[in-house]
């Protein structure tokens, strides 16, 4: 088998060469520097950094809040996607366009805006305050910020899958006496499950690494409201490059695992055609 299949089209060498060169220079070599920097550490130093109580505390917040945010997005992503696909109401198109807002909005802007909305005297924070619920500067605030930035991933994953659900099957099932919940469990859920899980994983992956929108609303107290990306920045500011690289390496490995999961889920979603319940 040769390297490429023959084609009459020109420009293969030029475009592939440019792509590979640019990709290596901007993405691959810098990432290799991170791996090399970590590899040059002594094993005991590495363990000391990545398992220090402060680092473990930051993982707990970063991964805990990201999991919680992704779960919230799993539920609301489905509800919003369902609303957009199934119902016709004034302002639906506008709402649909707004879903992508967190993609386009700079994270620093969403960070300061969420903080002022959820602060004690903010538009929403002031109504939560009497119940003793503090959002800004706590882990709840971190979760709120991570929910916002993960939302478009969840909605946009589920939307196309919902369009594929065969309405005739639902109608047939209901005609035959199936309840709403039964139809959901046996017809809708099996069709959209891979998409739901993909959306969940994408939202989670995005949330774990998020920095800009979180640092304003988190209190940034060590062990309590300090996310792992912030701890990396603190190491860098103290010129502890190796410590920063070690933590970055841990996050990178986790990102790869998550990325792999997404690819597997998408492969599963493609293999599983729209299937009727048996």
């Amino acid at each position, binding site marked *: 088998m040769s390297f490429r299949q023959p084609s*009459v089209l020109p420009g293969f060498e030029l475009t592939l060469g*440019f792509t590979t060169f640019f990709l290596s220079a901007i993405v691959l070599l810098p990432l290799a520097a991170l791996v090399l920097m970590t590899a040059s550490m002594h094993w005991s130093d590495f363990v000391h950094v990545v398992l220090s109580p402060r680092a473990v505390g930051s993982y707990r917040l970063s991964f805990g809040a990201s999991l919680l945010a992704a779960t919230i997005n799993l539920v609301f992503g489905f509800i919003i996607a369902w609303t957009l696909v199934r119902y016709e109401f004034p302002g639906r198109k506008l709402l649909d366009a707004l879903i992508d807002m967190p993609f386009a909005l700079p994270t620093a802007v969403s960070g300061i805006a969420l903080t002022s909305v959820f602060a004690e005297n903010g538009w929403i924070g002031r109504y939560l305050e009497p119940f003793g619920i503090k959002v800004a500067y706590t882990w709840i605030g971190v979760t709120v910020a991570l929910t916002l930035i993960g939302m478009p991933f969840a909605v946009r994953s589920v939307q196309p899958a919902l369009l594929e659900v065969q309405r005739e099957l639902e109608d047939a099932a209901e005609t035959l006496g199936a309840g709403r919940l039964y139809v959901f469990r046996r017809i809708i859920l099996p069709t959209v499950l891979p998409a739901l899980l993909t959306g969940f994983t994408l939202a989670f992956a995005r949330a774990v690494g998020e920095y800009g929108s979180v640092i304003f609303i988190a209190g940034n107290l060590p062990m309590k409201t300090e996310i792992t990306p912030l701890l990396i920045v603190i190491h860098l500011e103290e010129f502890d490059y190796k410590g920063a690289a070690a933590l970055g390496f841990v996050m990178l490995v986790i990102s790869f695992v998550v990325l792999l999961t997404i690819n597997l889920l998408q492969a599963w979603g493609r293999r599983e055609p729209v299937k009727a319940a048996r």
Partner: protein
Amino acid sequence: MRWLFIGLSLAFLAALLLAPLATVFATALQKGTRAYLRSFADPDTAAAIRLTLTTALVVVPLNTLFGLAASWATAKFEFRGKSFLITLIDLPLAVSPVISGMIFVLLFGLHGWFGVWLQEHDISIIFALPGIILATMFVTFPYVARELIPLMQQLGNDEEEAAITLGAGAWMTFFQVTLPKIRWGLVYGVILCNARAMGEFGAVSVVSGHIRGLTNTMPLHIEILYNEYNFVGAFAAASLLTLLAVMTLVVKTLVERTGYRRR
């Protein structure tokens, strides 16, 4: 059921999206339009706007060129390792912005691989414009390519092959045949890349050094103003970036209305 779902969706989006967006403009304008406009006269704010524009002006064309080359190579030809290459192009999307900035500090920072050499030759990359450009380029690297690769794959090669067989040159084929077909996807990819480039915070924050008037981009300047309790200034600058985001979404909606759909 219907109204419950619509209500829940609206409540969720209102709390998380609409309230923060409204608060940006409400806070920016809380002391009147004059105070709002005056905040842009601040020389540091003006410098931050200039730096952000300069960065985008370098990054967006380069990443567009890359996106065109990458999509031509991967959509027009079949070769071994193609899907691996596409995965690698998407890599920056999976990396935390902080890591995206850090890798350049590890390379070019004072204690990085080339730090001493750069200092001896009096070249500054970190805490200077080149570092900001590199970090922004990394973060926005996949956007144009991601938009174009599926589009070009979907459109197929027949027309290009016909043009070449009939004797058209390579560039003529690209400009007369391919470019008109992909133009809307290209427009959206470039606009999205630009919005990301102008709004990037984490990666740039790590490499910038936060020198006022020199290495602060708009998002970093917003952080400084906010931490100084200059809320009008911070939210006024934020309102510009919000408008940019709104414009990006408007372009996206218009592009989709031309009939071009993602996948």
